[in-house]
């Protein structure tokens, strides 16, 4: 058992804070517009066509790719790279740091990804199919586009960052995992500023749609905005989304020294593994992960104000997570529980980071955005504190706990405290 690492007992040099947020979501291209969409209950899910698979639904982002990249860089790189470049630049801008005079060799980039390379490989196979599978028509850009560090490396190239950069492959727990990795590297002194979170380009691979469909886990609905419906009795699967959310993380001592506006502090985190199934989650391990994060934060479950759930809209996944949450929060009066995928779908590697960002605004406005599209709550998903369909205002919001789980039984939890 790792000794609890209570943030408040640590020296400022070991306390990690968020000082900037850059994001693109299917319903917003910056933190404030994303928050507005959540409070206005505006979905970002739309009809979508994808090669071979045909018509489906997806969460599609419309950020300005050329705000920080030349057209040539967009062409040469990947969609995940462009999402990363946009969100990293936005995060740095939001942090107010003097970027020009920042030592780029002391900046680390830690980007969580669910998968990378499927989009680019499918594209090349599609191209060479037109040449009777002549592999001499396979692009020389394929390798730099598909190396696993690509989404982080494109950020480094674009911003001249010479510190460490890599991706963290963590299925749909990746957004939290990126944040955790960034915090750990700051604590180890490997960097002085971390750009950390998650990205996803998954809607550009037909394979993810086809695979979820074959698993009977792809959402369908006549109204795209109602297709993603975690906790509802009529939920029928996942809406795949793209997106990205990167945070600027700093040591509290550095943030204070430069007079930064602090959005929140990483007061606890945990990752563990089910080791039980490729796909089906294990609520016991999930509950253990949540408890470990609470323990490390030195918090009781009832001190959490908002629990941001991972629930994706699948039949078993949602009810299993609710079982896990009942174990930890079942006797609590204080926590409010919501779900952001009901608006944007499942942004895969970006999901955890985006869903956290959507809730961090509550430190300021004290409003819990609801899970939308719950016409009839599934009894299997009943937990005290669920915020459904209408926002709820709280007297204060001090702690947000963010769940993010993924295939192969990877679980991650982060807890952010108001500073």
């Amino acid at each position, binding site marked *: 058992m790792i000794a609890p690492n209570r943030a408040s007992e640590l020296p400022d040099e070991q306390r990690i804070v968020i000082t900037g947020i850059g994001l693109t979501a299917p319903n917003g291209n910056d933190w404030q517009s994303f928050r507005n969409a959540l409070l206005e209950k505006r979905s970002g899910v739309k009809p979508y066509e994808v090669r071979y698979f045909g018509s489906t639904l997806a969460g599609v982002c419309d950020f300005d790719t050329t705000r920080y990249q030349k057209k*040539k860089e967009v*062409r040469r790189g990947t969609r995940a790279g462009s999402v990363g470049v946009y969100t990293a630049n936005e995060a740095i801008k939001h942090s107010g740091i003097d970027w020009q005079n920042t030592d780029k060799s002391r900046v680390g980039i830690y980007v969580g990804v669910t998968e990378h390379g499927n989009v680019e490989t499918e594209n090349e196979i599609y*191209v060479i199919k037109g040449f009777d599978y002549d592999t001499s*028509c396979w692009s*020389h850009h394929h390798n730099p586009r598909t190396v696993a560090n690509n989404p982080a490396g494109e950020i480094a190239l674009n911003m001249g960052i010479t510190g460490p950069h890599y991706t963290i492959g963590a299925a749909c727990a990746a957004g939290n995992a990126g944040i955790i990795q960034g915090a750990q590297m700051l604590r180890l002194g490997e960097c002085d500023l971390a750009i950390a979170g998650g990205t996803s380009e998954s809607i550009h691979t037909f394979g993810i749609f086809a695979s979820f469909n074959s698993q009977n886990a792809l959402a369908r609905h006549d109204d795209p905005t109602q297709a993603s419906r975690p906790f509802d009795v009529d939920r029928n699967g996942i809406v795949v989304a793209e997106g990205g959310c990167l945070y600027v993380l700093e040591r509290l001592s550095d943030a204070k020294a430069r007079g930064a506006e602090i959005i929140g502090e990483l007061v606890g985190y945990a990752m563990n593994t089910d080791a039980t199934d490729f796909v089906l989650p294990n609520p016991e391990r999930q509950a253990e992960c949540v408890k470990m994060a609470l323990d490390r934060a030195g918090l009781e479950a009832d001190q959490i104000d908002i629990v941001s759930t991972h629930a994706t809209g699948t039949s078993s996944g949602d009810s299993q997570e609710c079982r896990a949450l009942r174990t930890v929060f079942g006797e609590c009066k204080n926590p409010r529980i919501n779900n952001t995928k009901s608006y944007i779908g499942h942004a895969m590697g970006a999901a955890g980071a985006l869903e956290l960002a959507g809730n961090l605004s509550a430190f300021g406005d004290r409003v819990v955005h609801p899970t939308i599209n719950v016409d009839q709550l599934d009894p299997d998903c009943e937990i005290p504190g669920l915020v459904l369909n209408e926002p709820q205002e709280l007297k204060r919001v001090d702690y947000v706990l963010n769940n993010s789980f993924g295939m192969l039984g990877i679980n991650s939890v982060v807890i952010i405290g108001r500073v």
Partner: protein
Amino acid sequence: MTPAEIREEIIDILEDISPDEDLDSLDDSQAFRDQLELDSMDFLDIVMELRKRHRVQIPEEEYGNLASMSSTVTYLEPKMKDIVKT
């Protein structure tokens, strides 16, 4: 294709490869690299596009012929003279 049509085709390829560049002022006698932001991967894109679009194969030892627009057109003329511009 005539030399003028080959030039037009190369311009079309360059517009894809270097979408941020102004190609109107390209000096055909000067090296591409002195006028455009092109690296070795970009030159491979020219080779790749000629292969995909016209099945023109350019051996690695002959890449040097693609240094400028003039040298490129001169080099490609015998290889593309029988291709009909569509």
